[in-house]
């Protein structure tokens, strides 16, 4: 009897890229739910637009690059990029914001920078950075959390606002939108007001600002689930959050009138989604155990620096992008000790 031969190992693999990506998408659900709860269903519309743009962009680039289209679309990596970008956008941003951002992320940030596995930067954050630099006005116009506004726009209202820039008769965009807590602190501190004064506003309550803390809790929950499932390693989120907390604590102790509490830093803005979902993007992150800790910690530090002294409402995107390029070198210097080799 004749048999086909092959090389060991012969056991079928248990894991797959699309399973990993799918589980990350699932892990985003609690955070996404908190966003919908606090800021209305606009984010779902943003996700839809981004997903559509991502799949179209991916298919177009794959066909241009003469790569197999269907198996690659099934790996959900473009979908994940789309959702990560969409949840970073203000819920009422006009439709072309997610469309442009996602297409840029997929076409330039992913494919032209090398394709899956070779792109040096986190594609979602490339898209976000381009949007923030190019359209700062749209990118900073967030909605007030539900706890503050009391009423919420319906799905249809959101839809119309996003696609035709029309709102119910008694509302205007200017009146409806407001800055995020982080953004508020930055601009108000710039006007020489003190933190006590600023934080007495209704936007600030709890530990991370109204609404925002729930969003962060949601992403923390999803992140812990991913840790338990072994989809991400603990080193990057722990390094990120520990460094952010430590440096925030240091400055808070030095001057509490200007620097918010470390807990506020960790539960506000994109801290949790950044620590668990953005910085952990495997392709662009460090891959050695010690390297991941260092990489995460450097991002955490940079987030604090950009938040405290930079010109942007949050620092996660830029911190991640700036450290992405350091990952290969960090990896090189943090190789684990191989069995039997001297320490």
């Amino acid at each position, binding site marked *: 009897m004749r048999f086909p031969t092959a090389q060991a190992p012969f056991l079928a*693999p248990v894991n797959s890229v699309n399973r990993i990506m799918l589980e990350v998408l699932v892990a985003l659900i609690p955070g996404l739910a908190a966003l919908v709860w606090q800021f209305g269903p606009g984010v779902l519309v943003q996700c839809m637009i981004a997903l559509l743009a991502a799949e179209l962009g991916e298919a177009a680039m794959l066909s241009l690059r003469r790569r197999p289209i269907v198996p690659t679309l099934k790996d959900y990596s473009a979908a994940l990029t789309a959702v990560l970008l969409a949840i970073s956008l203000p819920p009422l941003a006009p439709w072309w914001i997610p469309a442009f951002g996602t297409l840029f992320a997929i076409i330039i940030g992913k494919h032209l920078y090398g394709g899956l*596995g070779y792109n040096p930067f986190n594609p979602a954050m490339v898209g976000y950075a381009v949007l923030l630099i190019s359209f700062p006005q749209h990118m900073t116009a967030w909605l007030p959390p539900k706890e503050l506004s009391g009423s919420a726009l319906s799905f249809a209202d959101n839809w119309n606002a996003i696609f035709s820039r029309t709102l119910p008769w008694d509302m205007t965009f200017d009146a409806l939108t407001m800055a995020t807590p982080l953004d508020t602190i930055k601009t108000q501190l710039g006007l020489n007001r003190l933190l006590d004064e600023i934080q007495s506003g209704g936007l600030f309550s709890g530990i991370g600002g109204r609404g925002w803390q729930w969003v962060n809790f949601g992403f923390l929950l999803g992140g812990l689930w991913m840790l338990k499932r072994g989809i991400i390693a603990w080193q990057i989120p722990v390094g990120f959050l520990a460094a952010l907390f430590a440096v925030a604590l240091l400055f808070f102790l030095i001057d509490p009138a200007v620097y918010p509490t470390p807990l506020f830093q960790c539960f506000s803005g994109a801290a949790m989604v950044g620590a668990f979902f953005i910085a952990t993007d*495997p392709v662009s*992150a460090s*891959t050695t155990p010690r390297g991941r800790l260092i990489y995460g910690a450097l991002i955490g530090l940079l987030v604090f620096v950009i938040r405290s002294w930079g010109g942007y409402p949050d620092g996660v995107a830029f911190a991640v992008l700036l450290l992405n390029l350091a990952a290969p070198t960090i990896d090189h210097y943090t190789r*684990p000790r191989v069995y039997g080799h001297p320490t």
Partner: protein
Amino acid sequence: MARTQGGGSVNLFKLWNFHGGLHLDGHKRESCRAPLAVAHLPERLVFPLQQRNGEDSKPVIAPGDRVLKGQVIAHDDSPFNPPIHASSSGIVRAIEDLPLPHPSGLSGACIVIETDGEDAAIDFAGIADYRQCSPDELRRMIYEAGIVGLGGAAFPTSVKVAPGSDRKVDTLILNGAECEPYITCDDSLLSHHPEDVLEGAKILLHILQAERCLLAVEDDMPDALAALEKAKRCGDFEAIQLVRVPAIYPTGGEKQLISVLTGREVPMRGIPADIGIVCQNVGTAAAVYNAVVHGTPLISRIVTVTGRGVKQPQNILARIGTPLADLIQQCGGHTNEAERLVLGGPMMGFGVPTDDLPLTKSANCILVAGRNELIGEKRALPCIRCGACANACPVNLLPQQLYWYGRSDQIERALDYNLFDCIECGCCDYVCPSHIPLVQHFRATKGKAVAKRREREKADHARLRFESRQLRKEQEKRERAESAKRKKETLGTGKAPEILEAIERAKLRRAEKTAQPSGNSDPIDHDKRETVTPPTAAEAHRTSADTGHIENPSDDRKSEAQPMSSEID
């Protein structure tokens, strides 16, 4: 990290962890449920002359000869090539090229014996008390019995139990941690013949002059452990400690098992004996016992025949040289869904194209896979650098980096990332979400690295040859010019240059004698030294040895190369 093993009747024993590893579905039940079978005598036995990766052994019989069971049919002078014995009686039919059970699928010279059904054996002479023998005598017996490691690597046992006088061995480890899925031949041996293994351990302890033996079995082998405990109570086996180790693949890897049991690591490029340990498979220990006490050479072994492609999976005690097809036949034959044949386990075994191959000493498992039970080619996606491979690597390598460098032909970088520390266990391959055949890549990169080194060595050699040739040619040219010059000078005198030279030398000596101590002011001497290349150390040695023949005028070159003073003495 250490942990203490609790519960059970096994003594408390501190265990250690190694990095990475996998929990795999064992598939052990299939083959271990049935009792140990004994293979029928096949009509034909085939013995490849190549045993490991070394040279072929030389046949000591010829076609037409009648051989007896246990008779040496091929041997070699190398200690790495123990003799091959006939595993039953019969007539040597041929010595011919046949397919080998080897991953390459190549053919090689084999001795083919047609059995006569009598199974007549030579007289096996064992030793009543091995303690009366010196370790060296016992090592020779192990060599003569053709014993190699039965765990799969087939490394000659006599070499392994001779760690050298500079290495003090304190611990013998018997490896019964059969970590690869499907394989249960060690389990079966330990369950059915525990005393053979324990007795073998005592002999090995005596050879190594080691104090203790740790016999490791995995925690999913309760029958083996119970049988061992029972046998241990019945005899004097104080020095042997039974240890239950967790069933994590690849605990049965030599280095990993050493880590788990002792917390020690074999140093890079070292051997276990460097840290006072010798590791042997349990089957090897039983073979040592049979060789020393009963005088039986290694002519049979237990092999697992399993997989959904075979009707009655079981362990079977079979003669070395038995065609695999016969063994599969005895296990009920192939099922309809048989689609793949693997020798060894699914993680480190190798696929073979046919079952028309002989059973070798190293074959621990014949795995006939059913439909989709095992896979062949994988459809690979790009590496997403998730690091799952690095987490699983028992050696703590960074497979994602090795893959990256190997793929882009950066061999030096791959070597720098310790490519050759890879044990090819397949853990990284198995966990890779992109389904990249990493081990295959690493094997290829290793091959490239070896080829590159050979090429470099060859280039170095060629360069050296070229340089010395250049040097020689230059020197010859100089010498020719020199002798032409001298010829021209001495043309008028009509004397041969050698004679002239001798006269010159005599004159010199006289001058030297009179004008001492201003010895080295001679202009000729000075001149000559300039034109002569200084000899190398070896040449210098030769020159001084040759001084006796220097007056031979025909050897022009030699006289040229002599420093003046040595010629004169």
